[in-house]
């Protein structure tokens, strides 16, 4: 599936009405050396020109009915699904993750919606909760988004959501996700210890899940915001240097993956 005459990986950052992280997400793609456009929900553009798609954070369709559910049923999502089925990258961040779960593409083991992102359980704040947390990369190179991470690497990121708790009714699903190495990032303490308690697990997600990929590894839903933690100056109490911080490797991994396989 090589796209000819394209030197740089090219990403479409989607904008559904109510999304609000599209600018900074696009900026991070460009900073790691990719091209990126913001593509509106009602665009007639040919999406096959892109190597990958990001559905950014925000409140698409004001979270009507359930976060992500309306965007999941938009016509343009069908085109994106087709591209992803052909191996193109598809990353959903926060509200984008909610959209991908609602499409059934995450975890994508059947043609049905297998999981949900339920309201946070949090002893401090009910509803929307914005806080800095840590996540851990469980594997290396099992998907397009952990290509450049080491196993057990700890990454600081903020979460900013009211419904970010990965849950499922299927008792066997978690086991399958572990076996398939689909649980890409898990919430942990700042020294990497994984405990299922607040504030380490900030929303009550099962198995401390922060991000899940599909089995093929080209689609991932992540609740924390890597685009807000990609530079040292973005991270609280870190010396305000101008260097990159480890969350930027989510975007660098995408670039690396595309360059290895598609260009």
């Amino acid at each position, binding site marked *: 599936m090589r796209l000819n005459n394209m030197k740089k990986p090219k990403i479409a950052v989607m*904008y559904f*009405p*109510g*999304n*609000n*992280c599209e*600018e*900074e997400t696009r*900026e*991070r793609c460009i900073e790691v050396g990719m091209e990126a456009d913001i593509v*509106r929900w*009602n665009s007639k553009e040919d999406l096959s020109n892109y190597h990958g798609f990001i559905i950014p*954070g*925000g*409140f698409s*369709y*004001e979270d009507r009915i359930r976060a992500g559910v309306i965007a999941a049923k938009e016509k343009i999502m069908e085109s994106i699904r087709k591209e992803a089925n052909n191996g193109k990258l598809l990353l959903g961040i926060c509200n984008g993750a909610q959209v991908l779960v609602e499409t059934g593409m995450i975890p994508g083991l059947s043609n049905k919606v297998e999981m949900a992102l339920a309201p946070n359980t949090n002893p*401090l*704040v009910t*509803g*929307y*909760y*914005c*806080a*800095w947390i840590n996540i851990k990369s469980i594997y290396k190179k099992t998907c397009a988004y952990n290509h450049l991470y080491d196993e057990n690497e700890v990454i600081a990121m*903020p979460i*900013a959501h009211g419904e970010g708790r990965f849950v499922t009714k299927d008792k066997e699903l978690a086991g399958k996700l572990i076996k398939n190495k689909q649980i890409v990032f898990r919430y942990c303490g700042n020294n990497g210890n994984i405990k299922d308690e607040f504030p380490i697990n900030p929303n009550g997600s099962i198995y401390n899940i922060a991000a899940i990929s599909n089995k093929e590894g080209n689609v991932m839903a992540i609740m924390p*915001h890597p*685009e*807000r933690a*990609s530079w040292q*100056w*973005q991270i*609280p*109490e870190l010396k*305000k*240097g*101008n260097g990159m911080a480890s969350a930027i490797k989510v975007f660098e991994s995408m670039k690396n993956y595309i360059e290895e396989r598609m260009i």
Partner: protein
Amino acid sequence: MGDVDTDLIDIKGMEDANLSAFLRKNAISLTISEAKKIVELIGRNPSLTELHMFNIQWSEHSSYKSSRHILKMLPTKSSNVILGPIEDSGIVELGYIDGERYGIVVSHESHNHPSQVVPYEGAATGVGGIIRDVLCMGAKVIATADPLRFGNPYGENKNKARYIANEVINGIAGYGNAVGIPNLAGDIYFNESFDDNCLVNVVCLGILKEKDIIHSYAPKNAEGYDIIIVGKPTDNSGFGGAAFASLILDEEAKENNRGAVQVPDPFLKNVLIRATYKVFEEAKKKKIALGFKDMGAGGIMCSTSELCSDADYGAEINLDKVHVSMKNLLPFVILCSETQERFTWISPKEFTPTLLRIYNEDFALSTIAENARATVIGNVTKKQDYVVKHQGKVVCNVPIKAVTNGISYERQLKKPIRDFKEPQLKEPLNHDNYNNYYSYNKIALKILSHPNVASKQKCYKHYDRNVMGNTIIESGFADAGLIRAMPNSKYGIALSVDSNPRYCRINPYLGAVNAVAESMRNVAAIGAVPSALTDCLNYGNPEKPEQFYDFAEGVRGIKDAAENIYLRGTKEPVPVISGNVSLYNESSKGKAIDPSPVIACIGVMRDYEKAITIKIKKANSLLFLAGKRKDELGGSIYYEINKELGKNAPLIDFEEQRNIIYAVIECIENGLLLSCHDISDGGLLTAIAEMILGGNADGIIGAEIDLCFSNLRDDKTLFSESPGFVFEAEEKNTGKIKAVFKKYNLEITSLGITSANGFLLIKNKDKKIIDLPINKLREAWTSGFPDAIK
């Protein structure tokens, strides 16, 4: 004088009693003499539409009729001012980047009465309105901040105070998070003076190139240009909101006032903002000059008349073209309702199709909210009349300047009696009496858990503080928030808000001086240079001479402080570039709120990498004090927990403030400080404890302090709120720091060291005063606020 095609209200012929009854029946709050003044001004009796129009334009909220002549005192014209407080927002210089001059756009408003009546919607629409004020200057909106004042959470109206606090916080979060503008700063005070009248102020920042400013008036040669409104379809919500803001809140009338509160739609606003950025882009590309204005108080009437009048044009409006969501709206309701999420554009005819396409097709507004769109509703006229048609009839036809000029009053001033005394408090017992309620340890914890001192992280965690990805220092991690101004530049913009109600209760002049000085210290404490101020002046009833005196004193205090703490490197004032006046903040029982001149200070940082926070960075570094501790505990938290107010609020020596602020900034710029905290509520003890804990309350490095430097009794040294700073530095830099301070004729005092022992230990020579483990400090500081709003 122009004629209208509808019935006129016979103001000239009506008896005063009948006129008064007529005005009341029509919910018009004009006085009889004001109604008669309309006849004088327009040379005939007005139509009902015209009467409603003047009712809104002459309300306190829209006309500043009581405050205008006093506000003239404020300094607004320093060399860094790009635009003073005359349009929807003020603009101050950020700096030059690649030869282009960039400006920071700032607006500061209140939404007090709506938030008292329907707190969620009131607070949400406050955020919505302020974002429009900044956006309509042509700016990219980059941050908001919320200074809040609530009733006593432990007083007789505690349930209501807590309910309002929670709903207001949720409303701010519900709106700001959804549009996606980070919340950068804010403060919260509780006291009983706000029981019947909370204060919900909001500040918003934007950024632009000076050459891209879009003014709140029609461009040159605008005759015949289209007048376009865009956004939500007009309904009857918020009709009379401006007039409502200028009334005293009456508990029984509250039900009737609910209709005067607007309905927020952050989802539509999210799309509107993005579509509007596209219009900016297209207009720039095509080199088209436009006029653009928020639609807030007075709706279509206010925005269209001001856009045209301020460029010496008239306007002709056809209300039948306005997109509405309700049938059979009366003409004055369409004209004056304050439906949210709307803007007015003045556009040359050749650009109108592009503008309509962006909103109506590219961003398909009508699919976002029913019947939302951009519509041409009239045009700019050479003749300077304001003409409004409805169903083929002229319902308003008056000289446009008569609509926009407003009226003014010279209100009476009378100095109220303030008979306060200094209390004689017993000194607390030293550390050995740990379990005694009056031990230093217990009092320290009580101060840290006081809701006005305690960590507000629980509130801030409702707010999206890092959306847009530009936030460098979040609320609570330092005395000011800090945001990256734009990509590819190291400019940072700092923001802090301040006003201590109890200082203002004791002395409204000194309270205002302290608010200005503290907001500047807050910005300086991270290393940013105070560049501009905004003020939201929340006071009582201007018709009561004692309450109006407090207002005038507050303005005098802001003026004196702004003029005497110069802009860095000049003798110019730190300019006041935007502001708002909110009067009639009293309950129906006639009790005014504490005078509240809420000040925001905007700071500029050339290199955000130099910024520091309050959190102690390492063990075995040195702690210093700048700013002498004085016996001036009036209004302090220490007095408050002893149920006293006191008399001596902190005095500000302007020269010393100026020097201390610029010395601290210079030290931070030279990389000499590790952390720094302004001393304010709770005094020295609180400042040190907060430095140990840090914004996230996760600090593990303690401190060992010796108070031997002070001549005051130990409680006064620890709890006096005299202005100053505490900072942490490495020993090797002591000489350099002292040299910087010496340049400013100041000395610093050594307080002690930071330590890995996990305690805050305070002594005075051999006498042990306080020994508290960090987890005790943490527990007190983090529980005080959640407990207060539970």
